[in-house]
């Protein structure tokens, strides 16, 4: 089941790559889009089915395993728990929406859909992998696929941005690989099996070796997340990528970093994480405030959204720093922060993914991301206005929407463990609220410039797809119980809450 969720899109991508370009399906972008969307839905259905069968216990479930390179202790092993289920489901949903979303294909529809489906399989694989080797394989191939998506279908200085993205994130993935090998060589017998490593805790003794492994993991995940000051690849990559690719980059690929923090770093080197949780929390607050301030200064719509990602990832890291802190007696607060951080990952994926799709639609209609050249679109494009407003309010943490559910838990947890830092981080919320309101005002309010008299509203397909994301944001905001319950099945035992 889970294996099918990973490999059906990858197989479809391989078939597409072999398709003749000039005849049949290859010559009809519309038919291709429909076919690709149908394939993209498959993982969503399969992960949803896995969620229905999830029994709420801790530990990995529905594990599927095959020996791969037994000589080196490598297996193909996938499974789910309360942490990976919501992220895998969010991934499959964001991909489905992104695949179906209209985009300028530059006359090359076949490779576009092949790459994006391949990337879907690899991304779902990252969240379901239970073997470090397998995890790394999916992690790295997702970089390559995203590189080509940005380079071939991006705009502006796309090739340069794509290269910067590839170099930075690959520079992160090599320390990650060395750290994985460090953990691997510390196990006895040598194994890449995550569950076995977490059970063995081979680095519990601490020392220089554990610190080096920690540093390798941290470099890899911090660049991917990204945490300030490792974030400089993010703005150009997001701005120059095509809309759906930005949505995937922000919605899914950044989560690989935060997921890696929880699944690998905090689970396999918890001692070092606990020791360093205060500096990590400080770093998170820097990301929160810095990301918000830089976003405030932007006049480019997509750059602005990109920097709010830095801000939001700061909340996640703050939650994780609190969750892994050595704070005796605060298990409930730490579990709350961990649940909040995980909800933030899901919420950010839906919200920011949606906002990047919106910015793609704005670019397709107006030809620019410059906020100053827009205004008064409320009268011309109603569904664009409402959907953007919903997503922007969700992003700034309005109660009743998904972002609020996440942030309130992170802050409640943080106030219990690091009250001063939590107070500073609140500043980020205030700035974010201001910048989103200003963005909405510049786009939709005021006088409509003459050149936008004929500005078309969202098409039915765009509105419908964004509506799905918006509805889910609202659903999580109003009735979050189903999501919180699943995540708590992981978070409670993780922090050792009695």
């Amino acid at each position, binding site marked *: 089941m889970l294996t099918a969720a990973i490999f059906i899109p990858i197989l479809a991508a391989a078939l597409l790559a072999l398709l003749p370009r000039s005849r049949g399906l290859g010559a009809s972008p519309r038919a291709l889009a429909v076919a690709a969307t149908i394939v993209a839905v498959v993982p969503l259905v399969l992960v949803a089915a896995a969620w229905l069968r999830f029994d709420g216990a801790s530990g990995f479930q529905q594990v599927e395993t095959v020996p791969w390179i037994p000589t080196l202790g490598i297996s193909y092993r996938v499974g789910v728990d309360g942490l990976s289920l919501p992220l895998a489901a969010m991934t499959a949903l964001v991909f489905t929406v992104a695949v179906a979303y209209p985009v300028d294909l530059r006359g090359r529809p076949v490779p576009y859909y092949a790459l994006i489906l391949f990337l879907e399989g690899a991304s779902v694989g990252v969240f379901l992998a239970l073997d470090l080797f397998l995890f790394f394989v999916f992690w790295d191939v997702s970089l390559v696929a995203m590189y080509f998506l940005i380079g071939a279908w991006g705009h502006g200085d796309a090739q340069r941005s794509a290269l910067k993205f590839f170099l930075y994130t690959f520079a992160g993935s090599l320390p990650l*690989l060395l750290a994985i090998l460090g953990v691997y060589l510390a196990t006895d017998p040598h194994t890449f099996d995550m569950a076995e490593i977490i059970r063995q805790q081979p680095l519990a003794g601490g020392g220089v070796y554990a610190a080096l492994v920690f540093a390798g993991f941290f470099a890899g995940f911090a660049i991917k997340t990204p945490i300030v000051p490792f974030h400089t690849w993010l703005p150009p990559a997001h701005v120059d990528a095509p809309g759906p690719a930005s949505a995937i980059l922000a919605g899914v690929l950044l989560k690989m970093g935060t997921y890696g923090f929880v699944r690998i770093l905090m689970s396999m080197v918890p001692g070092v994480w606990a020791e360093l949780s205060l500096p990590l929390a400080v770093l998170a607050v820097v990301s929160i405030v810095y990301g918000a301030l830089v976003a405030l200064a932007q006049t480019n719509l997509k750059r602005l959204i990109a920097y709010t990602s830095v801000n939001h990832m700061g909340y996640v890291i703050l939650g994780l720093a609190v969750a892994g802190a050595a704070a005796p007696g605060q298990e409930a607060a730490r579990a709350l922060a961990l649940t909040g951080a995980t909800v933030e990952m899901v919420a950010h994926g839906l919200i920011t993914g949606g906002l990047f799709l919106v910015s793609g639609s704005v670019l397709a209609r107006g030809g620019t991301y410059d906020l100053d050249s827009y205004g008064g679109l409320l009268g011309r494009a109603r569904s664009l206005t409402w959907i953007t407003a919903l997503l922007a309010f969700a992003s700034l943490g309005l109660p009743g929407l998904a972002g609020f559910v996440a942030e309130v838990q992170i802050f409640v947890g943080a106030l219990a463990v690091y009250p001063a830092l939590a107070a500073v981080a609140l500043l980020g919320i205030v700035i974010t609220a201001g910048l989103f309101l200003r963005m909405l005002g510049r786009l939709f309010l005021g006088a409509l410039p003459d050149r936008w008299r004929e500005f078309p509203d969202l098409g039915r397909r765009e509105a419908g797809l964004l509506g799905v994301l918006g509805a889910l944001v609202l659903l999580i905001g109003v009735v979050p119980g189903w999501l919180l319950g699943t995540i708590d099945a992981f978070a409670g035992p993780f922090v050792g809450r009695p």
Partner: protein
Amino acid sequence: MPIATMVGWAGDVLAELAMVIGGIVVLLYALAAGPRRQVGAAWLALATTGVALALTIPALGEPGRLTFAGTYAHDAAAAVARVIVLLATGVTVAFSVPWFRRDPRHGEYYTLLLFGALGAMLLAGAAALTELVVAMLMSSATGFVLAAYHRKSSAAAEAAIKYYLVGALANAAMLMGVAILYGLAGVTTLDRLAAGLPDSASPAASVAVALVMVGLMFKLGAVPVHVWVPDVAQGAPAPIAGFLTAVPKVGAFVFLARLVLVLPPSALGWEVMVAVGAAATMTLGNLACLWQDDVRRLLGWSAVSQTGYGLMAVAALGRSDLAMAALLYFLAAYVPANLAAFGVVVTLRGRTALTDYPGLANEHPTAAASLALSFLSFIGVPPLSGFVAKLLLFVVAIQAGLAWLAVIAAANTVISIFYYVRVLAPVYFAAAAGRMRTLGAGAALATAASAAVLVVTGVIAQPLVAAFAAATPGR
């Protein structure tokens, strides 16, 4: 010497004998056949590699032992090296057929090719210093001629002269080293060399080992005797450029491994020599690639840097159980990637300027995909075999206490992305300037097959890793 013993020994080198006989048959055929029938020599050469391959396969499963009075190894490492060399030679023949089609007098080229391959095979099996000399000279002498095979090309002449001068120097150093080692130990066979060498650190032994290593480093294209590699890659006939930057390495790596395994540990400082050589080679090769506007020259420098990665396994020998397996897997991953990259150059009729490559993906998707797979495997992107190779190299380096070397290799890998992508980006993202003419389908097919090997042996790595690990116990 009893006849029965001689016959028994001959049975251990059937593949090598097949290459000798095949080479002579090809030469006789080339002399007799007219200009239009020269291509028949290619088929004979291909048949020869096929026969030699068939004779090598049974040796893969046999337990290792020494033959020819302890001078020649009949073991898994030698057999694996032979298989890699023979497959690579077959692919090179496929590249050469369309490349030399217009050359009316090229039959003997295949003899040189077969003898060059034989030199690498002998090098992989050599278990004595005398065998080393024979194999090195056989591999070098044929290499010089092959590099200069385009007699009227000044680039080829320059490459061959450089190759020859550096090679003569390195081979002379090696001969000197062999002589000193023989003088010190009184034997030439590796298995008794260690016992004969002085126990404590002896300057003479250290110098001798260093001199022998210079010869091997030349074959490997490692610092400081690497300078011929970019010139040969650029100037030699393209099929030969792919051959010379890959095949002799196989033999030299295996012999180097055999040599360092019998040296007394750390007394002679060879570990430091190899580790520092690895770091210098990968770093220099990488930095030289950075702003290269000539694809073949870039491939040459990248071949230098890849040697540096391979030397990590040699440096870890004796201190990691997997080191030998890592070395063999690295060779099995590196050689097809190198052949695929040069195969694309051959397919494109030797186009070599970076500006010749934009839009290749639209014009010739298979060639572009082969180039991409080859480069991604060089970088070490999963699930290609280059990734498994790098993983193994990192594992053995860390196990051997050479984590600093693994870190340098990782940093170099990041740098390498830059120049590989500098070629790949225009291939995929830019429009073609005009039609790109290609050579026949045979070269394209061999290129695609080499690239496919990278995927297959990467995804299904277990049989190779298990076989290599099992065949080299305790190393």
